[in-house]
Each structure stands twice: as structure tokens, then as C-alpha cells.
């Protein structure tokens, strides 16, 4: 048996568990531990964090012993663009207002596709969707979002 990584997926996830668990335990040092009978705020997180570290180590160990799948390729374009579309939406909500901000959200999200292009049908649907949201959420349900934000003179 050669000593090599047989399951790259397992080792990646295992390291994620170890990292998260260790971070949780590390931060929980600031919280009083208490005792098992009278637990402080640090007791439960340390317990769970340590458990997660152990699980992670098991996964790492297993990745050397059993065969597993290789890691799938991470596609950065949809990951970054979809995340960016949401972040920009939140950032600009009060500045641009719902109408323009939704258009921005849809435009950035549309770019996430490899074959993104401007289409009449798509634009019409987007316009309909924006009108629907403005009427239902702002006018109907009274969500405190301006239709046009501070940058647009409201």
C-alpha cells in the first residue's frame, strides 16, 4: 500500500472541518467554560468544535486509505458573478432604489452564463419582473425600500 492521497475530496473536506472546528475552539477560549454540571458559554462550542476537528482528522486519514473521487472543477464565473450580483444589490439598495437596483442585479446575474447575450424576451421579462416587485413588495406589502434611491434624487 503506497502512502498517497487516494481521495482528494475527503482530504479537502476533512481540512475544512479541522479548520472550522479549531477556529471555533480557539475563539471560544474567550468565553467562560464552566463545568459539565454548570456549563458556561464556552463549554458547548468547545465540545462541538473539538468533535468537528476529530471528524476532520478521520476524513483526512480516510483519504489515504480508501479510494475516492477527484475534486470537481470549481467554475469561478458563475460563483463570482452570482455572488457579486447579490452583494451589489444590497450595497446599492438605498442609493439606487428598487427599480434600478433590480435591473442591475438581473444584468450582473445574466452575465454568469457563458452564453450571455441581450435578448428582447429576456429584457421584457426583466421589466415585467421589476414592475411586479415594485407593485407587490413596495406598494402592496409596504416594504421600506424606496422605488428610486438617494442617488436618483429621492
Amino acid at each position, binding site marked *: 500500500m503506497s502512502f498517497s492521497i487516494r481521495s482528494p*475530496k475527503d482530504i479537502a*473536506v476533512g481540512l*475544512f*472541518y479541522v479548520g*472550522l*472546528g479549531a477556529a471555533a475552539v480557539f*475563539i*471560544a477560549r474567550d*468565553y*467562560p467554560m464552566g*463545568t*459539565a*454540571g*454548570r*456549563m*458556561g*458559554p464556552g463549554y*458547548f*462550542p468547545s465540545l*462541538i*468544535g473539538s*468533535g*468537528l476537528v476529530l*471528524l*476532520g482528522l*478521520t*476524513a483526512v486519514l*480516510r483519504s489515504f486509505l480508501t479510494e475516492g473521487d477527484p*475534486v*470537481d472543477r*470549481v*467554475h469561478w*464565473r*458563475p*460563483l463570482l458573478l*452570482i*455572488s457579486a450580483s*447579490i*452583494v451589489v*444589490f*444590497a*450595497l446599492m*439598495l438605498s442609493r439606487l432604489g428598487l427599480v434600478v437596483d*433590480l435591473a442591475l*442585479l*438581473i444584468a450582473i*446575474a*445574466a452575465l454568469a*452564463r457563458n*452564453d450571455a447575450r441581450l435578448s428582447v*424576451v*429576456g429584457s421584457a*421579462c*426583466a421589466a415585467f*419582473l421589476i414592475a411586479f416587485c415594485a407593485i407587490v*413588495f413596495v406598494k402592496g*406589502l409596504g*416594504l*421600506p*425600500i424606496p422605488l428610486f434611491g438617494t442617488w436618483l434624487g429621492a
Partner: protein
Amino acid sequence: MDFSNVEIGLATAFSAWNILYCLIGVFLGTAIGVLPGLGPVATISMLLPITFGLEPETALIMLAGIYYGAQYGGSTTAILVNLPGESASVVTAIDGYQLARKGQAGKALATAAIGSFVAGTIATLLIALFAPPLADMALEFGPPEYFSLIVLGLVASVVLAHGSLLHAFGMIGVGLLLGLVGIDVNSGASRYTFEFPQLTDGINFVVVAMGLFGIGEIIANLDRSSERTLLAKKITDLMPSLADLREMFGPVMRGTALGSLLGILPGGGAMLSSFASYALEKKLSNRPQDFGHGALAGVAGPESANNAGAQTSFIPMLTLGIPSNPVMALMIGALIVHGIQPGPSVMNEQPALFWGVIISMWIGNVMLLVLNLPLIGLWVKMVSLPYNLLYPTILVFCSIGVFSLNNAEFDIYLMALFGALGYLLRKFDCEPAPLLLGFILGPMMEEYLRRTLLLSAGDPAVFVTRPISLAMLVVAALLLATVFAPFIVKKREEAFQE
């Protein structure tokens, strides 16, 4: 039971005015339930002021309609686009979405609708007959019983996962840690808030669910072929066959029983019932390997449990004035503004309110069935839209819905973060469902554990000396044994072979 009061209730519920508001309620509820991210809590808090101008029973009939209508609508989105907007529909999404991908969305939706209707009817009857004794029974549940129930729930959530056992435990652990963010109930200390005041009350469930399921799924879909629509296969079977109905009967009945019982517990019982039902059906099934790949029983059971629980969760509120979830707390707020302090006296002093609301719930369930069965065709068509039109729509609704939780942009940023996490977890074959259940149950488990130990002066023996608690721990241990048994046996076999 005083029949003159029931008569008053019948007259109230069947007045044209109240039927109209019941219809408005269930219609609105279905609509917001279907829209991802927008849940009953946000909607009811926004509509609360409107109800101030109504009679209190009319207001409550409408609000109740929104609540159970949203439960109904929520399963639609969970099945069609894998977006559970409610903790209870996390389970429905697992097999419902797989059925939808096989082209059996119609069958899954009809199963959910019929199961919910049967469960709703039985649960309403139970409330009418046994509400006060059931409420007293619920109060017998103290901190140790809740703790043991949650342990049982966590073990059941391991059964939910169909992939690697190790990762199921890992995801539960990650969820437990995420659930700890915010102020610790027992000490008042802030944990893992990183100086963000927005995190002091913890991360909202909807934010995590929308991110992991909704956004994560969108990113994952976009990185596959650009041609696919959401439902890859041709749509078959809009309605369940007779054989399907026969297959559903057992799960629906068991789900209803579980949901009705657990629903009366104010500490999150309704939500636990849906995955208790899933775990039970998976254990009872002679084809457990189908679960996670589109088992009809995996939709029928939890959906019935969920809806029965949603109905019986009214019991503590109507009979004791104790809200079993945030929606109920809002309804109590609405009654208080009307000058009615919900409590044990409501039943006798306000028969129109008490019985009117209960009877209207059954009317509402009929309306939901009539409203939803014909709509199934429309829903199924909607998700066969090209994906490039569908995903921006989901994105828009998720973003606005998440904002509406606290009227805060912060929650939208968090959702983006969980979206990215959800995508990466998918890349590593980690399922989001156990994470979500750990997230919900973790803080409750800690809260009840520490409260029990405070009350028993640090003596853990109470968990096994109280019979209900002991019984649940035994069931949990047995369930865990059945999960591990095949695993251990297999390991042994491997060892012998080497």
C-alpha cells in the same frame, strides 16, 4: 364540549365575510409561500396593521390562513426549485425535488396537497375535540424532555442523509456551530458575532436556507451545461395513480399522527415532526435506498406531518396564550391590539373567536386543495421555462425576501456568503440538509441541556429518571445503532477479506 359554543363558531366561520377573509388569507399565504424567501413571519408583520380595522376573529382567521397557506405554498417551491422557505419543508425538498427532476413534479405536488389536506382535516378535528387536555399535556414537557426530543431529532437527521455517514455528521457539526452565533440565552454572552450587532440575535434560518439551497443551487446549475432547463426530463404523471394513492396512505396517516402530537409542543415540535416522519418512513420502507432519489413516501409523510403540526401548533396559543413559533407570537400581538389577551379564558369567553378560527381552518384546508390541485399544471409549466429566465427570478425573490426579514441589507450579504458556501459544499458531495437541521437544533439543544442542568443543580440523572425523556433517548440510541450496524458489519467484512 359545549355545543352552543360550537354553533357560534360555525356561524362565525361560515359568515360570508369571514369566508372571504379566509380565502384572502390562504390565497396570500400560498402566494408568499411560493415566492422564495418571503415567509409568513415577514408577511404577517407587514400585514398586521391592516388587520387592526377588522373584527378580531376575522383578523385571526385571515392571519391563520396566511400561516397554513404559506406552509402549503412553501412545499411547492421546495419541490419545484429545491428552495425550502420553512424549516419544515427542508425535508420535502429532498425527495420532492428529485421527483421533479424525474419529470414527476405534478405527482409530487399532488401528493403534498392531498397529504396536507388529510392531515389538516384530522388535526383540526383533534383540536376541536381535545385542545385543552392536549395543551396541558404539552406543558408536562419540561427542559429534560425537550433535550431528549432534540437528541432524537439530531439522530433522525443522520438518517436523512443518503451519502457518506462521516459527512452527514460533519455537516451537522458545521450547522451546530453556525447555530451558536449570537447571544447565548443562558449567560447573555455574545458568541462568534465578530462585533457585528446584526449577528447578536443569531443568523436567521431563512438566510441560511436561501443561501445554501437557493443560491448554491443556481451557481451549481449554471456551471453545468448551458442548455438545460430545470426539469431535465419530459413531464409525466400530473396526478398520482391509484397505486400511488394506496402507497401514500400509510405514510400520510403516520405523518399526521406524528405531526399532531409533536405540533402541540411549543418548543419547535411541528418542525421536528416532518423529519421524524421522514426517518420513520425510511426505516419502515422496504426500499430505503429510494429515499433521497425520489421516494413518494418521503414527500407524503413529512408533508402530512408538517401540515398536521402547523394546525395543532395553534393549541397552545388558543388555549393557553403561549405562542409555539414566531408566527403565533405575531398573532398574539394582533389579538392584544384588539384588546384580547390570549389565555385559558378565551375558549369560554370568546367562543366566536376560538371555535370560529378552528372551523375556518378546515374551510381553509378545503380551499387550499381546490385552489392548488388545478394550479399544479401551471406550476409545472412555470418551471419548464428556460433556466435563463428562471434563475434571475429566483435570485430577485430571494434577495427581496431575505431583506424583508429584518429590513436589513446585512442579511443579503450573509445570503451571498452562504450561497458560495452551498456551491462549494456541493462540489465536495456534502449535503446541505443535515447542516440546516444542525443549525436549527443546535442552539435549542444547548439551551435545554443547560437549563436542565441549572434546574437539577448539575445532576444529569434527570434525563434517564424521567420516563418520557428516557423513552426518547432509548429510541435515539436504537436508531443510531441501526445507522451504524451496517457500517460496522461492512467494516468487519472488509477486514476479513484482507
